[in-house]
């Protein structure tokens, strides 16, 4: 049992709501220094298959709403978003590479997740060359080595175990957040990029609101 509050954030780069949720979460965390955060790579397709769920993009009306919904959140927060022309693509390689980076380049891990290749620039992140171009500025020449390591059985197993863990804890989609209050062993599941106000209430921490992001970002210029 930890005396600090904690959040495990399960993510897959394929998920538009996870992209937005990660960026919103990153902003909010600036005001949540007392919360321990773990970012765990998972395969959303694996979660869906395990619980018999279907991706929302298979329903035209849900898909249309999602795109409009994310554009509005983008307008409000200033977080860039453009729905990619090629959707979906396979993120297995990219997610395994991030699994490698989490272990071998831990201090650069979060910067590697926080890229806009797919949901702003529409680049095909299933391709290793796109991954190389995206991550080379952060991890340098080691990036090709990271891609090779991604094929290790050990890495594949860790990635699969993360996905199985998320399913075991009740996940059915992404982003999924597992939240523990300070001094408690109980994990509470929150699903979606739209539960941060609830999470803040649950942890008794401030929720400054999405509208504050733009002004706080321009204040930093």
């Amino acid at each position, binding site marked *: 049992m930890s005396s600090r509050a904690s959040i495990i954030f399960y993510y897959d780069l394929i998920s538009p709501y996870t992209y937005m949720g990660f960026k919103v979460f990153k902003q909010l965390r600036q005001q949540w220094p007392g919360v321990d955060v773990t970012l765990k790579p998972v395969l959303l397709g694996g979660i869906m298959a395990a*619980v*018999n*769920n279907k991706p929302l993009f298979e*329903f035209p*009306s*849900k898909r*249309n*709403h999602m795109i*409009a*919904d994310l554009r*509005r*959140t983008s*307008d*409000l927060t200033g977080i860039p978003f453009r729905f990619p022309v090629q959707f979906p693509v396979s993120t297995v390689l990219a997610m395994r590479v991030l699994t490698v980076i989490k272990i071998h380049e831990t201090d650069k891990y979060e910067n590697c997740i926080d890229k806009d290749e797919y949901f702003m620039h529409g680049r095909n992140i299933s391709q290793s060359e796109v991954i190389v171009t995206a991550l080379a500025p952060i991890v340098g020449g080691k990036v090709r080595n990271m891609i090779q390591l991604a094929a290790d059985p050990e890495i594949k197993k860790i990635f699969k175990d993360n996905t199985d863990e998320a*399913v075991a804890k*009740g*996940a*059915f989609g992404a982003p999924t957040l597992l939240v523990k209050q300070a001094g408690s062993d109980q994990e*509470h*599941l*929150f*699903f*979606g990029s*739209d*539960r941060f*106000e*609830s999470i803040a*209430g*649950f942890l008794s921490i401030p*929720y400054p*609101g*999405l*509208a504050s992001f733009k002004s706080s970002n321009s204040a930093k210029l």
Partner: protein
Amino acid sequence: MTARHSITCYYDVVSPYSYFGVLLLNKLKATHWANVDVELKPFFLHGIMQGSGNQPPATVAAKGKYMFGDLIQVSKVSGLPLKFPSNFPVMTVGAMRLLLAVQRHASDKYIQCIEKDEYWAKDKNISEPEVLIAALAPILGGADKVQQLLKLSTDKEIKQALTNNTNEALEKGAFGAPTFFVKKAGSNKEMMFFGSDRFEVMAALLELPYPGINMSSKL
């Protein structure tokens, strides 16, 4: 096109998120969003599901399980009471037609009638006419008045109105409940928002204050 912002909310009382969505919207209207034209339109969620090819969340066991916990969290953080009913779901077409009849024939009592929590806080079976009568009699001035409206609610016209509202929402892209269509003042463009958790974004779009989910102590 109007000179005021407008929000149309399609809801079905079978839906827990409709319960929260309607209450939260009404609170916003009563406090910070007074100049927004709000219309609450009864529709038939089952018809929306069938028409859109969607399925209720509980069809996926993990989603259903999650929903129980999520509703408790929303209840806690919003201060709105919720006790998951022992019979879920129940047929609410009768209740929705009755609310349509109230909207037409006792419109000044409509909001009060929608906001009753017989199902979502008191575990009463709202597919039973006696439950509806007991719930609405204090508001509408007696069991007889409710009986009259119940009778009217079986008219072809009311049945058609529920179907029309449902089809209208479907045509505009609805796939669940609650579904909101928001129009900015001076614009014809309707923007669809799904779910009871989009008021913060709506507020920003309409340049209105968003006081946070916990509005119960803010009147």
